[in-house]
């Protein structure tokens, strides 16, 4: 009996290995093509992790002077992270202008989307990617997933946001990750991030795990930027002593622990625009937002759009990048996705003008710093806060 079982297990394992081997053959045939750059051995994947702003030595996409009618009927794929909400009717307008239809694809979170793009580098899952942010930017750039293109709108875009000198990505929006508090419940309103460790706010703060949550990562980076490489650990040690709660995701913390969802904590890591969302989506109309942000707790998060290398529709993709950074599209972003436009000419909706605080001091780190420090920081953070 035992022997039969063993032989059966063996048979199955052989089947699996055979399937894998069979697949490898097709791999090898592919590896001759230029698309498998960045792969170092026949089957091992190595993600390149530094020097992201190097010349990719790829020619920029040039739009021909006249493409009128040529692109009519073309369809291109735009991939975004799952939480992106397309403004109603926006892409129909693009189709009306250019004849190109946009097929919107969604991935999971930003990290997953970037990993998928890295895995399919050169033979991309879509033509254009929307929403890679400055925390993942280097991973994308150093793995060579984008094709350079200088958007026609580039002069209108905020120069602070133009991080890549080779135009592989174009900034499309920005938003800050900030510590929010419920004004009526917090007692004395906290003025600075350092107060979070004071006994006054003991048991009041809830934030997220940077390994599983983008705002969690943003706040960790904010503390690293604020306190420096040497000071942030101490701050988190104090936070832990002050009974901070760590959730795995934004939803669990905002709707579970924070007052908003019936929890009992009055301070939470969320976004700069969250107070406005609370204002707009209040069940009963309000006069002012019920929440506010701590001005110096913010981390600047920038989202980019980029043409994926290997696309067979470079011109149409270029047109889409122009459209996504145009004032028309940019003005639609705040109300649907609660981010601020990268295009300085775009008008910000009244409610944003009314309630976005003007005294925000966002800190940030360069994409290279983030990429280099990320794994090590999260591991240290885990030791300090969770274990």
């Amino acid at each position, binding site marked *: 009996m035992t022997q039969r*079982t063993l032989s*059966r297990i063996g*048979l*199955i*394992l052989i089947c*699996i290995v055979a399937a*894998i081997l*069979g*697949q490898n053959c097709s*791999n090898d045939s592919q590896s001759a093509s230029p698309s498998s750059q960045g792969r170092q*051995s026949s*089957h*091992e*994947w190595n*993600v390149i992790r530094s020097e992201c702003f190097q010349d990719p030595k790829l020619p920029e996409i040039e739009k021909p002077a006249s493409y009128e009618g040529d692109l009519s009927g073309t369809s291109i794929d735009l*991939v*975004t992270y799952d*939480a992106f*909400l397309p403004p109603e009717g926006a892409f129909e307008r693009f189709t009306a202008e250019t004849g190109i239809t946009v097929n*919107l*694809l969604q*991935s*999971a*979170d930003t990290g*997953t989307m*970037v*990993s*998928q793009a890295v*895995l*399919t580098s050169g*033979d991309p*899952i*879509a033509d254009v990617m929307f929403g890679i942010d400055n925390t993942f930017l280097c*991973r994308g750039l150093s793995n060579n997933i984008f094709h350079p293109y200088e958007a026609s709108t580039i002069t209108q875009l905020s120069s602070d946001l133009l991080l890549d000198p080779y135009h592989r990505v174009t900034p499309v929006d920005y938003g800050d990750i900030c510590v929010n508090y419920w004004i009526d419940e917090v007692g004395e309103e906290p003025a600075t991030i350092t107060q979070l460790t004071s006994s006054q706010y003991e048991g009041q703060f809830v934030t997220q795990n940077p*390994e*599983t949550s983008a705002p969690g990562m943003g706040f960790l980076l904010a503390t690293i930027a604020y306190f420096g490489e040497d000071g942030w650990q101490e701050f988190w040690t104090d936070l832990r002593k002050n009974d901070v709660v760590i*959730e*795995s*995701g*934004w*939803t*669990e913390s*905002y*709707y*579970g*622990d924070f007052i*908003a969802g*019936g*929890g*009992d904590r009055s301070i939470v890591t*969320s976004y700069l625009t969250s107070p406005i*969302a*609370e204002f*707009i*989506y*209040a*069940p009963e109309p309000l006069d002012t937002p019920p929440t506010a942000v701590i001005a110096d707790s913010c981390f600047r998060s920038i989202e980019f759009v980029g043409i994926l290398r290997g696309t067979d529709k470079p011109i149409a993709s270029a047109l889409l990048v122009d459209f996504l950074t145009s004032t028309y599209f940019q003005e639609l972003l705040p109300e*649907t996705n609660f981010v601020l436009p990268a295009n300085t000419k775009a008008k910000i909706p009244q409610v944003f003008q009314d309630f976005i605080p003007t005294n925000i001091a966002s800190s940030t780190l360069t994409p290279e710093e983030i990429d280099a420090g990320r794994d090590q920081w999260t591991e240290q953070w*885990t030791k300090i806060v*969770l274990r």
Partner: protein
Amino acid sequence: MLGEINGLNNGLKLFYDDESRKNRNTTDLRIKNTKLATSASILLVVGFFSIFYFIPLGKILWYGLSPDNISTVFGRSGTWKVIWFTLWQATISTVLSLCVGIFISNILSRFNFRGRGALRVLATIPFVMPTVVVASAFLSLNKIFQLEQSIFNLEGTPLGIIVAHIFFNTAIVVRTLGGWWGQLTVDPECAARTLGAGAFRTFFLVTMPRLKPALIAAGALTFLFTFTSFGIILILGSLKQATLETEIWRYATQRTDINTAAALGIAQLVIVVLMLVVNSRLRNKYGTSELGAISVAKGEIYASRFRKTRLYSGILCTVIFLGTPVGLLVERSLRIANGYSFTYYQQIFTESQSGRFSIFETRAAIINSITWALFAMAIATLIGYLAAILLSSPSEKISKPADVLFLLPLGTSGVLLGFGIIVTLNSSFWNIRSSWWIIPVAQAVLGIGLVARMVGTALRDIDPEIRNAAKVLGASDAKVWRHVDLPIISRSLIAGAAFSFAIAIGEFGATAFLVRPQRPTIPTTIFNLLGRPGASTYGQAMALCVVLAAITAISMSLLDRTGSVIRETA
């Protein structure tokens, strides 16, 4: 020729002994056609599984297969800790899910009471609730009952993970056990009682051993689900408690370290294959019983003086355990600033009236979800039926590997399979990785194993004699299939279809890690609603969850109407 005679005259049956029973297969008139059908099914099923499962998974696991990488990953003590915790929590969760499942099945299968139907549906709903919602509900309970500082803290502890796993998998255990148990007579229990065994000894010495086939089947599925559980571990374990699945996710998506993720995926696959081989052996030894409708025993049941007390306390415990998270959900979907109302339900069904509330196309999401789930169901049922032919094949060379292979997808990391599909079905192959129908196909891959096992059991139990009887009465092969096979397996087919529908509508596994056309479904909309601030969006998410639960409840009660599918093979 014996078979034919026998088909004509059932009265001769007495003269058949075991020997002639064995010979029956060789005299089966259908044997040639069976062979043809088997080869065709093998081709189709293997083709489907290769394209959508084996090749994608193989390709992604290949990244982890270099000796250097393997020795690095498995050289870390952390890896072994993760493997140990994964096995530990899956085993404990499975055992406890079985215990709770036995407790609830006992009430459902051994008592006839008012509201039994409702309790049955309640026991099924957790299975399809989105993990993010369930985990949130448990986190809320943790806060409501102030368990954080007690030993019953559910957050960041193994206890929380296990309790949530039990909550989820009760449905599977109850569905598998309930059908089987209701069909067992109570006479052996009565006999044990009159022979001097008390309630406990009767249960452990007589009832439990007779439940073995169902326990084995339910245990295998529960183990697969808990072994690869993702959302629950991530949210309730908050990464203090990492398993293979969450580590694969972390390395593959957050660190883009595919090599490590793939190495962990290999470990996961090896364990799952071993488990399924053991399971297959046990199934061959003790017979099988699969998921299906819950039946209740007919006639009066032996009783003690505590019968009523036992029934009512049992119902109470079940309702408290399964009902509290569900109830909390309903409560949240109805709660507005001051009191309760159906506002959120109105909002999700009336799209963007004022432009202020429902920015999400919730109605479209409901329609999309149902359409995709129906597609997934159709694929899973069709391929599952063909797979069932292989499972019930008289040749052990076919049936035994099939037994293991079809359930593999349930024990496979969704991240790796999703990524595998993306890298495999690329432009050099057949660029379908982001077409809309890859979603129902990926969902179907999970459902096929369930359908195959359920239908396979039914197929195996069809007595070849009745097919022969139909033949000698003048039915062609096609007619035999239409009038004999199909009616007999139809209940299992329907049950299998209902489960693959439930899996698809709850969107388990790989689909979350595919690139998909942005068409809203109920789970993605719930996820998106929960991803933004504002009291209305939260309420709408909860209302949508209730809608999802209601759809499941309806599909499952339809299943219960079609009756039971469990048959004894022994």
